[in-house]
């Protein structure tokens, strides 16, 4: 067991890791933004729509939730362009996949959040003469967002970690950067030690920031 840790080669290529981390964060941010848009829209349609619409949304949610993310990534990047005439780069493909993935989880989060809005608040909205749409926009959604903020934080942190899957289609995010350094230096233990710390530190920093945000907003409940 004469292995000596040597981080010199890692530091020499650290720009790969730093750039990867930035890209990972960008992927997570863009995907959660699109995912929230998808989730909100479908949740609202779900609570006000008919049976067929509900079934379609349910099918989307169950499909995404029951297929491994890595497979979804392959399907969208390799499968879709061979089936239909469409082309996109790996990063675009991954953002689309991760957004659809986040959207499916967030539909459920927002839907149960809407259900959890106290009846009394809806009654109060009715009593002052708000229409159903006004009650949704001014009473149910703002209340729901406060209820779902903790779940939203968890989803975001999961997404940040899930960006590592993008390495399988050569999107140069953090995990891909680690693999690149592996192939070129064979300093496997060192690279993964550094990358693990980077995921850990970033994820924890995000967690602390979001908890602070929750305290600010959930205070109203």
């Amino acid at each position, binding site marked *: 067991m004469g292995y000596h840790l040597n981080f010199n080669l890692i530091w020499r290529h650290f720009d790969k890791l730093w750039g990867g981390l930035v890209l990972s964060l960008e992927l997570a941010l863009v995907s959660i933004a699109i995912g929230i848009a998808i989730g909100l829209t479908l949740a609202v349609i779900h609570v006000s729509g008919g049976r067929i619409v509900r079934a379609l949304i349910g099918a989307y949610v169950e499909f995404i939730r029951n297929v491994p993310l890595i497979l979804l990534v392959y399907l969208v990047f390799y499968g879709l362009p061979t089936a239909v005439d469409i082309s996109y780069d790996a990063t675009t493909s991954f953002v689309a996949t991760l957004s659809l993935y986040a959207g499916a989880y967030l539909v459920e989060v927002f839907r149960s959040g809407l259900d959890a809005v*106290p009846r*009394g*608040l809806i*009654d*109060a*909205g*009715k*009593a*002052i*003469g*708000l*229409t*159903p749409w*006004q009650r949704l926009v*001014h*009473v149910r959604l*703002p*209340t729901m967002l*406060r209820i779902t903020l903790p779940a939203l934080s968890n989803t975001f942190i999961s997404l940040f970690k899930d960006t590592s899957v993008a390495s399988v289609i050569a999107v140069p995010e953090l995990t891909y950067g680690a693999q690149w350094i592996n192939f070129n230096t064979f300093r496997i233990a060192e690279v993964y030690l550094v990358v693990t710390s980077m995921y850990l530190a970033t994820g924890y920093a995000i967690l602390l920031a979001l908890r602070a945000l929750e305290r600010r907003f959930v*205070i*109203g*409940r």
Partner: protein
Amino acid sequence: MSVLDPSSGTPLLRIRGLEKAYGQVTVLRGVDLDVAKGEVVTVIGPSGGGKTTLLRCVNFLETYDKGSIRIDGEEVGYQDGPRRAMRSERDLARMRAETGMVFQMFNLFPHLTAAENVMLGLVKVRRKPKAEARAIAEHWLRRVGLAEKLDRLPSELSGGQQQRVGIARAVAMDPKILLLDEITSALDPELVGEVLDVVLQLASEGMTMLVVTHEIGFARDVSNRVVFMADGLIAAAGPPRELFGGAIEVERLRAFLSRFGARV
């Protein structure tokens, strides 16, 4: 000014043969009740007697099965005509804006400040400009003694303060009738007074009110008429002096009142 005889002219609120059941459980078994403009009518009675359901039917937070509720001659919830069809949501919203309601659990919008709670209906339903709505909100919050709390969130207010915001939110809409649903039941005893004072003040200014309460003393002080409900029916009704003075001989009423220490 005090309209003790509801038969004079058309009452503002006219309820006839109101029936309502939740599945197998019948809650209202044919309630008749009139409230004239400017009148304060208090509904008392044992829990489960249908008081709150009656109140919630008046602004159609509950549907009803049979009978009729009219406010200013307009049928609540259902379209006029032989076929019993529900009004459109827009129509329901318009009619609900004509009645104010204050809830047992306050039900303030948690994400809005006291002033914003009052302003929401003014801006979105009454279509008032923000500045005017703010001025009206400030006026009413000052009236209920909360001039210092305009920009506080509900979570930063005591129960009594929250309920006063609830009252301000309802009266700011300038409703034809104010419905009060056990508005002091969720309050600590020492906070009840500040809320009831506001209601007494409104009553003295001629606000029409239908009040469900467990505060017998308050019912005596504020009401033109008191209605005793039990088992989904109005078992006794009359001016508070008659009802509480023993002039009306109803066994259930006597049993109910005795729990509050005989003479109130």
